[in-house]
């Protein structure tokens, strides 16, 4: 019994230590660099104004897309992701995913489930022409549909939604990067981007699509 408790405590400590160490390997700048590098790749026309969803998107959605539709067992079929989405093995590592999920899962309730109470600021993003609009306004939860700014937006304007990057397996940063155009009805092609720093530059390791069909 004593042995078991010691083993359990050792395991718990090593888990906590591993998480702390993981956080320490990236500095604050990395989280913005990775977003901005990807953002600049995606937005070709920098002359026109784009819309960015004001709220940082919810990490639970990032975790869900990364995992796929159903919880996975360690011996799941290799083609799991073919059927139910999520990252492919070996990028998907059960232990690393569990650590990430425990660290970043957000239990708070928000006005809509896709957002958090943190917001993006102009200084966070390296593009000049950005209009920030709340996701909540778009889905008409706060304005009874009479939001004249929303109702008179021109079609075909880029809309981007971003989440705060989170650390995966000590060496990757992953985040939601969603892009569409107005009229905006959410992000039908929501995806999670996995990036890794190689020789001081962030490189895309994988882009994982949402498994839902809409």
């Amino acid at each position: 019994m004593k042995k078991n408790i010691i083993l359990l405590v050792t395991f718990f400590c090593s888990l906590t230590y591993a998480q702390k160490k993981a956080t320490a390997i990236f500095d604050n700048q990395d989280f913005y660099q990775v977003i901005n590098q990807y953002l600049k790749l995606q937005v070709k026309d920098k002359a026109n104004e784009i819309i960015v969803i004001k709220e940082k998107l919810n990490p639970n959605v990032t975790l869900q897309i990364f995992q796929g539709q159903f919880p996975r067992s360690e011996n799941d079929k290799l083609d799991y992701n073919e059927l139910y989405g999520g990252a492919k093995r070996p990028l998907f590592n059960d232990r690393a995913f569990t650590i990430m999920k425990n660290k970043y899962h957000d239990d708070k309730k928000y006005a809509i489930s896709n957002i958090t109470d943190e917001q993006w600021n102009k200084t966070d993003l390296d593009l000049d022409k950005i209009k920030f609009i709340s996701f909540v306004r778009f889905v008409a939860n706060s304005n009874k549909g009479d939001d004249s700014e929303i109702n008179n937006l021109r079609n075909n304007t880029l809309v981007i939604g971003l989440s705060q990057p989170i650390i995966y397996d000590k060496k990757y940063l992953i985040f939601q990067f969603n892009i569409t155009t107005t009229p905006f009805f959410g992000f039908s092609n929501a995806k999670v981007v996995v990036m890794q720093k190689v020789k001081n530059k962030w490189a895309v390791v994988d882009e994982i699509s949402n498994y839902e069909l809409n």
Partner: protein
Amino acid sequence: MLKKLPFIFSVFILLFYACNAEDSVSASATEAQHWFTNNVTSENFEVLNYIKDIEWSKSIVSSGDKGEIIEVPFTVQSNLKTKVGEQNYISFHRLLLKKSGNSFTYNHVQILTQNQDFDNSNKDFNFYQITDNFDGIVLVVNQNKEAVQFSDFKNSLINESSSTNKMAFDRCVYMGWLYENGDFEALMLVGCFGGGGGSLPNESDNGYPPHVGSGGSKGGVSAPTPAQIAEALQRQIDGSKLDACPQTVLEALKNSKNCDIANVFTKLGVNKVYNLKLVSGYPIGGIPASTTRTYSNVAFDYTITISKDYTSATSLFRASNMLHEIVHAYFMSLKDDQTNGGGSAVYGEFPVLFQAYCDSKYPPNKNEAANAHHEEMANQYVNAIALALQEYNLPNDPNKLVPYQVYSDLAWAGLSEAPVFDEHFKGKEEEKERVLNRYRCESNGSVVEAGSPKQQNPIGKPCTK
């Protein structure tokens, strides 16, 4: 010891004959078992997915004018039941094998009765004869899931009293899960039948005759028509977990007189019943609705999530979302059909599913471009949905003053993720804007781009709660 010898000898003789008799049965059965085990998989015989135990040792071999027939009782997972019309039966299952050259033909026999004491290993109930006092149904389904026999017996005679026109529609046979709370979830529609029984489509395959002197096989037995399948599928759609307003919308769509959901299915060529439920929730990405598989490792079972957001949307918007997603689920079933339930990474990719829909009518042909029929199929999709929306909105527009174009625009908006959308509206920017703005204004029940030539006003009523 000597005294016991006659007894031991008798037991030995008995065992010897018993073993020989068993051997004479098992010779054919063993060959059939060997062939079946090595050649038949759930990919070509769907019921194997649900089998718990095949009792080869209880094989029944019978001979007659159609040759030697081997029947092997099997059990299925305990909650898998068969339902005929609205009636639940206790179902007993057998494999039915018949040698054909070096292989075997194989069928699935279901003996449906309300007699709990029916003995499925009774050798006197076989392809060539049935036992006395049998009340129930014998249903034989071949490997292509076609019913080759449906016979309704009363006291071992064909039950002619059930031969009414009404029954022709009501007696659809489903296999599916029966839950503890009594809910029945159909996994497959076996067939729809009328009358007391009969044969289909190759009479030479029939067995399980009524006792001599019976009324014979009568009644119009037929494979389900597309309309019957569409009706059966529409009945399967479960909206009980939707919020109040969307639930009302779904019921109205199901109960439309001329252009209900079944009508949409018929127009699009649905040929299979699958499980479909709609729930209220929060689709990923904040979109108005989404469709996914319900369970891992289960094909032909889909869940549509209608967003609890979009709180200012009109009921017409919700109706268009539902119809669009219901069609998505149908496209998924086509893909599941093409891949034997294996699916593929296409679930998040509408264009690939749309292609599956096109391929279902026009199989891929190397002499044609993949998108050769996209426009035609898109028009078929748009017309089916637009007519259903128009009828849905009839209570608000009894004189049909709202132009049909409003409904077809809403239907087109549902295709905006498919390449055919851009192909269709190439060089028609004004039309494209009209379509997008129709969808916008119904999504929040407000006028959009007010004062501009692109202005659109919602025509649907608010869908609150």
